[in-house]
Structure formats: structure tokens, C-alpha cells
């Protein structure tokens, strides 16, 4: 049985990988039908394998390590391509493969007829492989491989419509901003290795008590930088809203349900290190709380349906970080799971809306859609109620747990931040719903004629997600802090720290949370349904605030001014330096060689050859003149002999004898 489980564990990432290889290398040779069947089929099989593994883990209750391949070994370094499947990984695997499968199926309908259909599914499957490696790895290196892999796929999929400038720019932006976080994460890995001489989770966490508080803080903060980059927290949140340039299923899968929660996974996985540093925990909570509030305020005024959802994602991720920061790891994981359900649902229904309106994303040009696309409307409404935190839907339980935890651990500032965030969340989500689905239609005539409900292949996955959004919270986390999930995760994150809380206080907190959510709904109902002009007058009265929010606190502009522009200018300067000085030097060397070679050529031609020619010509001349002595005339020879004898005689007479 255990062998079978090990085999299933290996199969989980392998199946999508095979689909990537098949679709990536041979995809152009067969039809789109085969390509998408391979894609969702492999993910579906992975999901089935996950269920098998999950059942085994639930039964035995122990973590399982599988070494697939001994990768790097030498000295005291040994890194394996190995998987650690414990309850935490299990939950993530279920979410990734389950939600991933639904979104793959949905994509078949959504992407129908797009160019690059096979390419889309290749990237999606590659993303699945990377994400599975990320959550399954038993050491930091495998985690990092997955981490970079999902970043790459995110880049590729945001830039799916690569001939669109804004998409290409958004893709680069996402990649570059993620690199900042990755640098922090890498530093953290180095620090871990320096201190522990190993990168395996189990070994690291076993000796985490040997960490000095300073070291723990350093590692934890570096990890946090990585998590902030990947999970789009302040101050690296700017890439996520722009990432909505990608196709909607991508936004749902990568930029809402799975990849962006990798930061939360990483913090929960490393909670032993974070626990050792109260200061780092404080920073995590501040980042999370700040982001939750910050992004929610921006979400209030955005007009692009996907961007509202994107800011809502950032905000909800902030909640998860806040939960981690106050030690409510289980609650954070819980929120990740419920968020994956309802945010995927929201994004996919938004995709369905966009699909129905032939690509329109501006909510100012929507309205009155509830009759025309009833299923999409119902499912979107379920998602909205779930995220707003109205019981008994999923979002309420997880969000309430984070808020409750903040309250009972006496972190009242965080509680207040979370409560305001919840109010804003409820408000902007219902605003979105009202603007999209109710009121008079603001579509142009052409679009209105073509409005149609999405096909079953798209609505089907939405219904499953809708059911999960309704029941997921109750099934996993009821009663609060005592639910099934809490017991399941206990071996990994430690006892959830049940607090001595009277039932009365608990119910009161729940009541407050519900009231907050309903208040947000009520406000939105009043402003966008009962009296639509009130919203405009409100915006006009607070035009300064409104403009700041509409421009997202000018963060992009500030980054442009502080980093992008100076870097560009530095780049231009370096470019100039390179072209003028370095290239000048190189070209100078080249030209000197050219000149010297020309000079030496000249010297050879005119001096050395001339010398040689002088020798040659003089020989030639001497020979030409000298050969005339040999006239062929016997008399001349005889005369010369006689003359020679006389000379010889004279020499003998006057020189030798003397």
C-alpha cells in the first residue's frame, strides 16, 4: 500500500509534465481537441492521485517523504529531488489540482477559437507542474525551482496576447517585480544553508532551536521579502492588477487561486523559523494588515471588473498574511482554501460575463445582466456573498477565524484593520455585482444583441466551485478552531492554540462580523441600486480622495519616479558609456591595429621589397653586363688569356719577387 502511495505521489507532478511535453513538442501536429483533452485529462488524473494520497495520509496521519532522484551531493551538501507530503502539502495539492482541473475544463470553453490554443494549455500544464513541485518539495531548492517555474509561467501567460503592448509590458512588470522577491528568498536559502548545513525541511526544523534570535529574524525577513513578491503584498503589489492582462482563466488559476498563495504556503511551511522571531511575525502582520486595507480601498473605485477582483485578491492575501503574522496559521491556510474556491468562482464568472459581452471589461458599460445570463449571475452572487463574509458561506468562516484570533490574542489594532477591510470588501464586491448585473443596461447596442449565456463546459466548473464556496467553509472549519481542518493540520503547524473563549464571545464576534458584512452590502445596495446618483455625488464631494484611489495611491507613478525612471536614465548613461567609452576603446584598439598593419604593409612594400629589388636588379644588371665577356669569339678568349698571362707575369715580376 505504501509503495502504491509513493508511486501516486510521483505521478502527481509527472502527469501534467507528460502533457506539457506532448503538447509542447507535438501539439501542432494534432487537433485542439486532443490537446485540451491531454491537458485537463492529465490534471484530472493528478487530482485523482492526490485523492488517493490524501486518503492514505488521513488514514495514517503521518508525513511521507519520497526521494525521486538524488540530485546534488558532495561534501556536506546533499540535495534531492524529493517530495514531502504531509497534511499541509495535501491541502494545497487538493486545492491546486482540484481547482486547477475545474479551471482547465472551463478554459476549454473560454479559450475556444483563440489563436495559440495549444500553447495556452501547454503553459497551464507547465504551471501545474511548477506549482506541484513548489508545494511538494521536501527542501528549499525544489521549492525554489517550483517558485521560479510558476513565476515563469505567470510571465508567459500574462503575456499570452504577446502582440498587445500592454500585455507584454504587464508580463515584464510581473517578472521583474517578482525577481525582487526572489532575490530575498534566495538570500534566505543561503542563510539557512550557512546556518544549518542542510536544506531539507525536516532537518532544518528539527534544529531550529539552535537559531539565534537575530539569525531567525534575518532568515524570516528574507523569506518574507520572497513571499511579499510572490503574493503581491505591499510594497510589491503593483504587478498583480496589471497581471489581469492575461486570459481570465489564468487570472483565476494563477493570480487568484494558487500561485499567489505560494507566499502564504512558504510562511506556513517555515512557521518554525517565524515563530522564533517575534519581530518578523510583527512585520508579517503589519504587511498583511496594511495590504488588506490598502488594496480594499483601491478596489472601491476601480471600473474594470477584473481589476476589482485583482485588488480584492491582494486584499484577501493581506488577510492571510495577517493571519500568519498573529500566529493563526491554520486560519490562514483555511482562508487560502476558501479563497481559492470563491475567488476562482468570481474570476471565472467574471470571465463568463466578459465572454458574454464579447470582451467588454468595463463595469460602467454593463448593467442589467441578471436576466440575460442568469446562471452566471447566480454563481457570481454566491461568490460575492462568500467573499463578503456572510454566513454560512465559505468566506465567513475563514475570515472570521482570522479576525477572531486577532481579537482574542488582544491584537486589537489588527482586529480593527481587519474589520474595516471586511466592510470595504463587502462594499466593493456588492458594488461590482450591482453595477454588473442590476440596474439599466449601459451596453452599446451591438454588444447587447450578442449577449449569451456561456456553454455548459464553462458553467459546469462554475457550479462545482459554487457548491464548494457555499459548503467549503462549513465542511472544513466548523466549529471555529475545532474543525476538521484544524485537527488535520495539527501535526504540521502545531496545535491551533485554542483559546479559552466563552461561547458568548465567539458568537458575539461572529455577529459583529456578519453585521459588518451586511452593512457593506447595505451601503452598496443604497448607493448603486436604490439611489445611483448618490454614488456620483459622493465621488464628486470627495473628489480628491476619489482621484487618489482611482490612481491606486499613485504607487506606480511613485515607483516610476523613484526606481524606473532613474534606472532608465542610469541605463541610458551606461548605454552611452558602453557605446562611447568601451566601444571607443575597442574600436581604438581595432583602428590602431588597422593603422599599424597599414603602416607595416607600406614599409614592407616600399622598403623591404625595395631592398630585395635592389639586390635582384643589381644581380640582374651585373649579369646582363657581365655575360657580354663571354662573347663566343675564340679571339677574345685568347686575347684575355694572353692579357691574363701578362698580368700574372707582371704580378710575379713586381710583387711576388720583391
Amino acid at each position, binding site marked *: 500500500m505504501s509503495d502504491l502511495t509513493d508511486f501516486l505521489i510521483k505521478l502527481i507532478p509527472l502527469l501534467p509534465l507528460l502533457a506539457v511535453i506532448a503538447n509542447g513538442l507535438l501539439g501542432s501536429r494534432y487537433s485542439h481537441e486532443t490537446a485540451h483533452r491531454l491537458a485537463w485529462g492529465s490534471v484530472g488524473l493528478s487530482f485523482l492521485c492526490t485523492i488517493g494520497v490524501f486518503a492514505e495520509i488521513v488514514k495514517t496521519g503521518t508525513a511521507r517523504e519520497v526521494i525521486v532522484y538524488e540530485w546534488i551531493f558532495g561534501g556536506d551538501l546533499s540535495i534531492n529531488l524529493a517530495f514531502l507530503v504531509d497534511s499541509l502539502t495535501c491541502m494545497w495539492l487538493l486545492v491546486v489540482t482540484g481547482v486547477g482541473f475545474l479551471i482547465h475544463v472551463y478554459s476549454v470553453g473560454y479559450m475556444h477559437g483563440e489563436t495559440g490554443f495549444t500553447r495556452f494549455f501547454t503553459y497551464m500544464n507547465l504551471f501545474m507542474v511548477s506549482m506541484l513541485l513548489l508545494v511538494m518539495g521536501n527542501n528549499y531548492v525544489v521549492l525554489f525551482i517550483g517558485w521560479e517555474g510558476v513565476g515563469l509561467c505567470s510571465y508567459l501567460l500574462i503575456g499570452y496576447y504577446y502582440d498587445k503592448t500592454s500585455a507584454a509590458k504587464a508580463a515584464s512588470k510581473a517578472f521583474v517585480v517578482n525577481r525582487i522577491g526572489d532575490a530575498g528568498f534566495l538570500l534566505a536559502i543561503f542563510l539557512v544553508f550557512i546556518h544549518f548545513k542542510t536544506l531539507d525541511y525536516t532537518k532544518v526544523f528539527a534544529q531550529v532551536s539552535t537559531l539565534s534570535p537575530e539569525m531567525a529574524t534575518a532568515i524570516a525577513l528574507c523569506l518574507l521579502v520572497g513571499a511579499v513578491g510572490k503574493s503581491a503584498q505591499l510594497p510589491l503589489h503593483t504587478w498583480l492588477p496589471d497581471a489581469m492582462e492575461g486570459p481570465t482563466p489564468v487570472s483565476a488559476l494563477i493570480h487568484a487561486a494558487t500561485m499567489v498563495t505560494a507566499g502564504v504556503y512558504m510562511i506556513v511551511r517555515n512557521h518554525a523559523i517565524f515563530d522564533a522571531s517575534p519581530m518578523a511575525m510583527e512585520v508579517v502582520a503589519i504587511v498583511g494588515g496594511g495590504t488588506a486595507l490598502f488594496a480594499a480601498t483601491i478596489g472601491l473605485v476601480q471600473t474594470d471588473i477584473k481589476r476589482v477582483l485583482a485588488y480584492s485578491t491582494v486584499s484577501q492575501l493581506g488577510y492571510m498574511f495577517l493571519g500568519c503574522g498573529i500566529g493563526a496559521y491554520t486560519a490562514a491556510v483555511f482562508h487560502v482554501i476558501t479563497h481559492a474556491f470563491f475567488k476562482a468562482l468570481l474570476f471565472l464568472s467574471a470571465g463568463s460575463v466578459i465572454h458574454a459581452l464579447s470582451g467588454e471589461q468595463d463595469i460602467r458599460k454593463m448593467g442589467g445582466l441578471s436576466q440575460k445570463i442568469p446562471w452566471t449571475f447566480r454563481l457570481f452572487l454566491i461568490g460575492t456573498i462568500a467573499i463578503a463574509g456572510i454566513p454560512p458561506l465559505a468566506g465567513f468562516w475563514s475570515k472570521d477565524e482570522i479576525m477572531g484570533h486577532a481579537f482574542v490574542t488582544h491584537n486589537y489594532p489588527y482586529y480593527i484593520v481587519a474589520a474595516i477591510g471586511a466592510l470595504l470588501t463587502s462594499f466593493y464586491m456588492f458594488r461590482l455585482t450591482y453595477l454588473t448585473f442590476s440596474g439599466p443596461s449601459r451596453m452599446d447596442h451591438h454588444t447587447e444583441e450578442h449577449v449569451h449565456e456561456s456553454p455548459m463546459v464553462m458553467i459546469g466548473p462554475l457550479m462545482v466551485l459554487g457548491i464548494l464556496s457555499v459548503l467549503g467553509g462549513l465542511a472544513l472549519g466548523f466549529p471555529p478552531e475545532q474543525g476538521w481542518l484544524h485537527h488535520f493540520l495539527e501535526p504540521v503547524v502545531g496545535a491551533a492554540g485554542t483559546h479559552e473563549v466563552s461561547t458568548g464571545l465567539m458568537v458575539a464576534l461572529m455577529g459583529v462580523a456578519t453585521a459588518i458584512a451586511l452593512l457593506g452590502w447595505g451601503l452598496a445596495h443604497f448607493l448603486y441600486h436604490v439611489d445611483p446618483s448618490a454614488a456620483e455625488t459622493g465621488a464628486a464631494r470627495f473628489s480628491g480622495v476619489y482621484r487618489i484611489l482611482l490612481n491606486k495611491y499613485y504607487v506606480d507613478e511613485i515607483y516610476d519616479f523613484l526606481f524606473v525612471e532613474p534606472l532608465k536614465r542610469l541605463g541610458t548613461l551606461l548605454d552611452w558609456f558602453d557605446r562611447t567609452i568601451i566601444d571607443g576603446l575597442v574600436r581604438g584598439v581595432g583602428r590602431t591595429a588597422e593603422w599599424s598593419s597599414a603602416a607595416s604593409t607600406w614599409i614592407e612594400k616600399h622598403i623591404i621589397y625595395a631592398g630585395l629589388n635592389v639586390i635582384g636588379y643589381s644581380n640582374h644588371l651585373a649579369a646582363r653586363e657581365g655575360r657580354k665577356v663571354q*662573347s*663566343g*669569339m*675564340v*679571339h677574345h678568349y*685568347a*686575347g684575355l688569356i*694572353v692579357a691574363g698571362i701578362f698580368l700574372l707575369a707582371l704580378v710575379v715580376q713586381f710583387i711576388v719577387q720583391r
Partner: protein
Amino acid sequence: MVPLSAYVAVSAILFMTGLLGVLIRRNFIIVLMSVEIMMNAANINLVAFSHYLESMSGQLVALFNIAIAAGEAAVGLAIIVVVFRGKISTNVDEMNLLKW
């Protein structure tokens, strides 16, 4: 008694005659004859000194010389005949092929 100097004088006169003949005349046969004269001038010299020094070796060389002269005349005349067949001429100046 004829003194040695007379012999040497005759020999010198003959030699110069032969030499001038070689240098001046153009007819191959005359040149060959002049060469014979020069050789005989040398023979007179040899014989004269042989007598004067009372040594027989000079006379021996003279006899040897006469034999050589005969051979030389034979070879020389043969060359002349061959050349004459080709050129129909015995002019030495026309025989200038061995030059340059």
C-alpha cells in the same frame, strides 16, 4: 758556338708570331697552324735549355710535345671538317655558339 740567348730570341720571335697569328687571323686552319708555331717555339726553348743545362729531361718533354702536337692537329682538323660541313666556312668568328 751559338749562345743560349739566340735560341731564346728565336723561340720568342716564333712564339710572338704564332700568338699574333692566333689573335689576328680569322681562318681556322691558319689559327691552328699558328698554334703549332707557338708549340714549336716552346719546343725550341725546351731543347735549348736542355742543352744548356745538360739535362735530357727537356728533350724528352720536347719529344712528348711533338706527339701531343700531332694528336692536337688531328683533332683540330677533324673539328674543322665537321664545322665546315655545317657552315661552309672556316671563319672563326662565325663559330660563336658557345656564348652567354
